[in-house]
């Protein structure tokens, strides 16, 4: 048990996995110097440049090569820096990594963890601020993960490396410095949500950085005696229906809050599923369908905030 930040939790987790399993390797730009956010710190020193592999700026080939590595006995961790640049490697992720096993009738497996940090990274504007996790939930073959805490970043990375499937692994660009307790002995299973706060009046479902805003929103609501239950989904595919449905049955009202653009975001999937299968009232709050602007005032317009979540919750309660 130690306090460390979200970036260090990832580096520690990867290091622990590499020590245990010689098949685990990491590759990507600038990983040798620890990654520009410290998320690979110390690893090349510990495991050498053959297992912590600096690469050219060749996203398509980074991902394609990782598929080749995975098919031949390795378990690559692929650094794509931010989801925005992962757009340069979509054929390799979607057509190659995700479909390989099925297409070849189970002759092959692609155990791989594809790190593609999401979210608004303050003042980084339209090409560095996207959250495209819902895209990957739409693609068969992929597991989709989005940790919100250092503990989960440690534990979910372990689980992702062990599961044997290609995992779209979404850290958040603004969580790197978040400190928290990390217990390496505490497993964090894929597909299990975490109850972050209990409440009876409504349920807020969230993941990644939006979990923290949701908790802040719950605080705001609590001042008026409204008790919100906050669920951190953690894994988007497969998502923890059991936890969500149980909470929905309890509160009868479910708000899904996420940073990604609301239109066709994963909130739509959850809300639609609830509408089809339960009597809960549903609402969503995601970003507007607008690129993220550079100036603080513009950026602020595209952010989902605690107060906006709280306002949306009140609206839902009034319905």
């Amino acid at each position: 048990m130690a306090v460390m930040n979200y970036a260090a939790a990832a580096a520690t987790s990867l290091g622990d996995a590499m020590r245990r399993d010689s098949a685990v390797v990491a590759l990507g730009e600038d990983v040798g110097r620890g990654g520009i956010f410290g998320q690979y710190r110390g690893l090349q020193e510990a495991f050498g440049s053959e297992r912590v592999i600096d690469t050219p700026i060749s996203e398509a080939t980074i991902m394609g090569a990782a598929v080749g590595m995975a098919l031949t006995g390795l378990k690559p961790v692929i650094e794509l820096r931010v989801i925005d640049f992962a757009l340069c490697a979509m054929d390799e992720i979607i057509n190659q990594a995700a479909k390989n096993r099925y297409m070849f009738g189970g002759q092959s497996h692609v155990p791989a963890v594809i790190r593609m940090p999401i979210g608004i990274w303050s003042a980084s504007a339209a090409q560095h601020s996207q959250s495209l996790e819902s895209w990957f939930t739409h693609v068969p073959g992929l597991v989709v993960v989005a940790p919100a805490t250092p503990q989960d970043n440690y534990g979910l990375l372990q689980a992702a490396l062990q599961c044997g499937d290609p995992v779209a692994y979404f850290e958040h660009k603004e969580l790197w410095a978040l400190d928290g307790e990390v217990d390496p002995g505490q497993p964090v299973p894929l597909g299990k949500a975490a109850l972050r706060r209990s409440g009876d009046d409504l349920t807020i479902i969230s993941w990644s950085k939006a979990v923290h805003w949701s908790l802040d929103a719950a605080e705001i609501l609590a001042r008026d005696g409204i008790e919100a239950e906050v669920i951190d989904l953690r894994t988007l595919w497969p998502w923890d229906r059991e936890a969500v449905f149980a909470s929905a049955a309890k509160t009868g009202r479910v708000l899904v809050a996420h940073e990604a653009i609301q239109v066709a975001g994963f909130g739509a999937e959850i809300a639609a599923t609830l509408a089809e299968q339960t009597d809960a009232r549903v609402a969503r709050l995601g970003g507007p369908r607008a690129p993220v602007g550079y100036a603080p005032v513009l950026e602020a317009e595209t952010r989902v905030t605690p107060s906006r979540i709280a306002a949306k919750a009140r609206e839902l309660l009034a319905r």
Partner: protein
Amino acid sequence: MMCRIRAFEDAAEEASRGGVAAFGQQAVGQAQVRGPLHLSTGQEAVAAGVCRHLRPNDYLTSTHRGHGHTLAKGADLERMMHELFGKATGFCGGRGGSMHIADFSVGMLGANGVVAAGIPIALGAAQSIKIRRVDAIAVTFFGDGAINRGPFAESLNWAAAFNLPILFVCEDNQWSATTKTGTMSAGQGAAARARSFGIEAEVVDGNDVGAVSETARGMIADIRAGKGPRLLHARTYRFKGHVSVDPAIYRDPKELEAALKSDPLLVTAAQLRAHGVAPTEIDAVLQAARTEVARAVETAGQAPWPAASDAFSQIQDTGAGQWL
């Protein structure tokens, strides 16, 4: 091997009539081989000449036009035909078909429906060989059109920067679908591009299996000796349309006519005759191949279809069973 490939392609072509809607053709439904079928007829010498120097633990990636490569790498002909028929007994259990033919048991890591996508996969296999300290190499086949996609250049750079054990083989059939590749490709082709990354490269007559084999042998020996990547550019010709139903009306019939004169099977037959092999012996080889293929077609026709439930297996372990 070349005869087996030719016999396979001819039989597959025969079984594919009406199998896909494109080039103004409609799918009629009752074809035994359905979907886009890309034949390597006329290009057999490249696959045969290169792959004879490979071992089962060497890795290979291929293209949409991958039957010849797969056979040459040692895959079972019958199971391949079964896959083309979409049967449960095929290599991919009927999930993949022609464009996704693969036999991982002989190191054949897959054909690919996306042009140039196999190249980085082989590159990764080569890096994996190095990391795992295995005595093997990786080979990747790609077309002349594929060299204009970014991943080819990215992979050349990467292979050279890491000195990886990989052989790039450009199988140049002069066409990219309905486009004459020369009109869209600048410079002196794949070999020149490889050399700009410091990769040794050679151009050979891809219709002469002896020439291909001889050059590939040397290059593969170098690669096995740790001398780094090599590129082989083999010039050949696509006898058929882009897919089996394509009548290829966009090309000058004279071009095909001329190319048929360098049919690699004829070239080899002539060489063998020159070496004193009796014509009947040569015919017998092709005859034997056709018999083998005919048997494969027959068993493929009788083989069972996959179960409907196979549509939902081998996708992923995590969350398996949750398809909605």
